[in-house]
């Protein structure tokens, strides 16, 4: 019989390690809430085309409908004449010059009501998950199904901007969702890259020791000697600064991952140094297992807790760095959206006019929430995986 022998009528449950960890994680309330928040953000990002009323680069600028820096559209819930509740509608807006401040302001034109339509039609888009297939492949296969269904929208010439518009009259709400695609995936991919490189090189350094160890640790030291931001910028300069966003996306992942593997490698090396003296590693060696087998089957799995925790804590760092890079104009570029880039665009037109368009700062809030959530999940995972931090 496996497990504790009990004489009582209710047998003791024995939990697997995975079950214990999951149970512990669930007790970390902030981490659970954060997990839901992140889930929601990823869902919003995946279905951005459907949820956003306008396309990523659909702009209302200098044309028949000019919505440069239009404030968030007011949604009316009540009939202005009777005061009774009605289906939500918006008014068309006109830009007028305010004679006191000499600035353009948007005034509502209350002559016609434009009801908010749900499940309406908009610009065509390639739906998720088909849009994950690279465009060039889709083109060669001739497989480009498009959909025009959108969650909500209003008839033109009225427009609906939940969180206002940027200088080119593009919907900030929608672009935040499209930007989430970039910001949220770059962080994960870069963390995977940093983790894989760090784990393998750290394990190799710790397991073999000698000159290989010296070499790898020297490289780590050299990399940590140059400030990460500058290394990032210098490496970024190796690629054309005006490259297409789809190229920049992978370039940034590559650079971020290659800059940050050092910390992982150093920690893993330390663990492997003691792990390789363990009896079970000796046993494996005695049985004639190859070095690669010992490293990948016996040594690295023992560092799994560390890997999981550092993975979740690497992501927020990468998100911050990516948004910083885009903020400097060296990351994802227009017309594609990224939260950092949107904040940089917010500065266009000078600081002094900032107070007239505070909605341009909302992307910063999203960076904040995302990083916060990842930090909490990381903390929760660390506590859950640490036997010393068990909660009753």
């Amino acid at each position, binding site marked *: 019989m496996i497990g504790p022998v009990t004489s009582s009528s209710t047998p003791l449950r024995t939990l697997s390690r995975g079950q214990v960890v999951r149970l512990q994680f669930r007790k970390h309330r902030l981490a659970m809430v954060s997990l839901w928040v992140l889930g929601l953000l990823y869902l919003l990002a995946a279905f951005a085309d459907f949820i956003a009323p306008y396309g990523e680069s659909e702009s209302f600028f200098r044309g028949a409908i000019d919505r440069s820096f239009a404030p968030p559209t007011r949604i009316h819930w009540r009939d202005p004449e009777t005061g009774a509740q009605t289906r939500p509608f918006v008014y068309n807006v006109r830009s007028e010059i305010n004679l006191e401040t000499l600035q353009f302001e948007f005034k509502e034109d209350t002559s016609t009501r434009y009801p908010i339509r749900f499940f309406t039609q908009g610009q065509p888009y390639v739906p998720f998950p088909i849009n994950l297939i690279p465009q060039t492949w889709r083109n060669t296969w001739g497989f480009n199904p498009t959909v025009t269904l959108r969650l909500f929208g209003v008839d033109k010439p009225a427009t609906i901007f939940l969180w206002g518009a940027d200088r080119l009259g593009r919907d900030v709400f929608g672009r935040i969702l499209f930007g989430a695609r970039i910001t949220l995936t770059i962080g994960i991919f870069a963390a995977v890259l940093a983790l894989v490189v760090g784990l393998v090189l750290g394990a190799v350094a710790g397991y073999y020791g000698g000159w290989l160890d010296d070499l790898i640790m020297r490289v780590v030291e050299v990399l940590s*000697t140059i400030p990460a931001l500058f290394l990032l910028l*210098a490496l970024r300069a190796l690629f054309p600064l005006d490259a297409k966003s789809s190229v920049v996306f992978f370039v940034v992942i590559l650079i971020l991952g290659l800059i940050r593997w050092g910390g992982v490698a150093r920690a893993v090396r330390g663990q492997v140094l003691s792990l390789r003296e363990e009896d079970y590693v000796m046993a494996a060696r005695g049985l004639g297992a190859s070095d690669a087998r010992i490293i990948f089957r016996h040594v690295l799995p023992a560092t799994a807790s560390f890997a999981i925790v550092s993975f979740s804590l690497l992501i*927020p760092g990468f998100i*911050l760095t990516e948004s*910083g890079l885009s*903020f400097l104009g060296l990351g994802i570029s227009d017309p594609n959206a990224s939260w950092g880039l949107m904040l940089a665009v917010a500065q266009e037109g000078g*600081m002094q006019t900032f107070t007239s368009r505070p909605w341009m700062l909302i992307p910063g809030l999203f960076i*904040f929430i995302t*990083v916060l959530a990842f930090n*909490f999940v990381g903390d929760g995972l660390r506590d859950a995986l640490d036997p010393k931090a068990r909660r009753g």
Partner: protein
Amino acid sequence: MTQYLIRRVLQVIPTFIGATLLAFIIIQLTPGDFTDRFALDPNADAEQLQRLRENFGLDDPVLVQYFKWMWGIITAGYLGESFTYRAPVTEIIVPLIINSFTLVLISLILTYLLAIPIGIYQAVNQYRLGDQVWSFFAVVGLAIPNFFFILLLIVGVLYLQAPLREIAQGNAWYRPILDFLSYDLRNGLLFPVGGMRTTEIYDSLSWWQQVGDRLWHLILPTLVITTAGLSSLVRVVRGQVLDFLQSDFVRTARAKGLSERVVVYKHVLRNAISPVISGIGTVLPELVTGAGLVEFVYRWPGITPGFVIAIQQKDLYVVMGLLVLSAILLMIGNLISDVLLALVDPRIRYS
């Protein structure tokens, strides 16, 4: 101790060579040879090009070039010339570094002065309200991007501008005080929203007003950088003090009847402080780059804006110079923190 110091300094040399070599390779790989650029540029300074060609041996193999470049740095501190500014790189980057380090050093000192008492307070009052409030701030401080934080502060100051201007320009008794304090206050700006000094009037100010003007401009960026540093450091101090509060020698000290004050400050702090001090080495790179985007938003003429501009204009030797100098500064920082650690913690043996 002397022996330890010498060995520690010698260890720096291979790292330095590695870092500069890496910087050099990156620059070599950067597409677009600058000589091509000069050939196309009608304003090209043929003399400067010739000088660079001679000094750096641009026709030699890459490794020879590296040694020539290195030799120039070691013997004459010659880092090359800037194409954009038509001046030696040193002349351009030294002011940038001075500007950045005023900001970073002030913030670093503030961070340490604040983090240690706050961390101790949190540990002593573990899980009480005060602890949780500070923990909350730390969590927020860690998650908010520096460049977003400074943007928020600037927007906040701008929001206050209109009401404050009305108050400030009223015919009140305090007007002379405002005039005396700051140029910006008169316009309703609580703090300056960018730059190192008020350029419009700086030259007409007396020296102590100039000092005041500069300090006034330091406040917002310092606040942002200090918060960033504090958030991570306070956590470390708190954890350390908590660890030691549960140790045997603390129980002994309490049993002897020592006051809690003496126990915390004499027994615990002495032990808890060493990783905090060695942390200076890890905080420093964060500060050099952390100041980075803040400098950019605040139009502070520091290292990072200089670096970004140099990269955009492919001003290769300025990029190189900044890479090398920041690497040197980081190595010095690590060295200092190691030495401090050795001084503070008698358990560290120098062999």
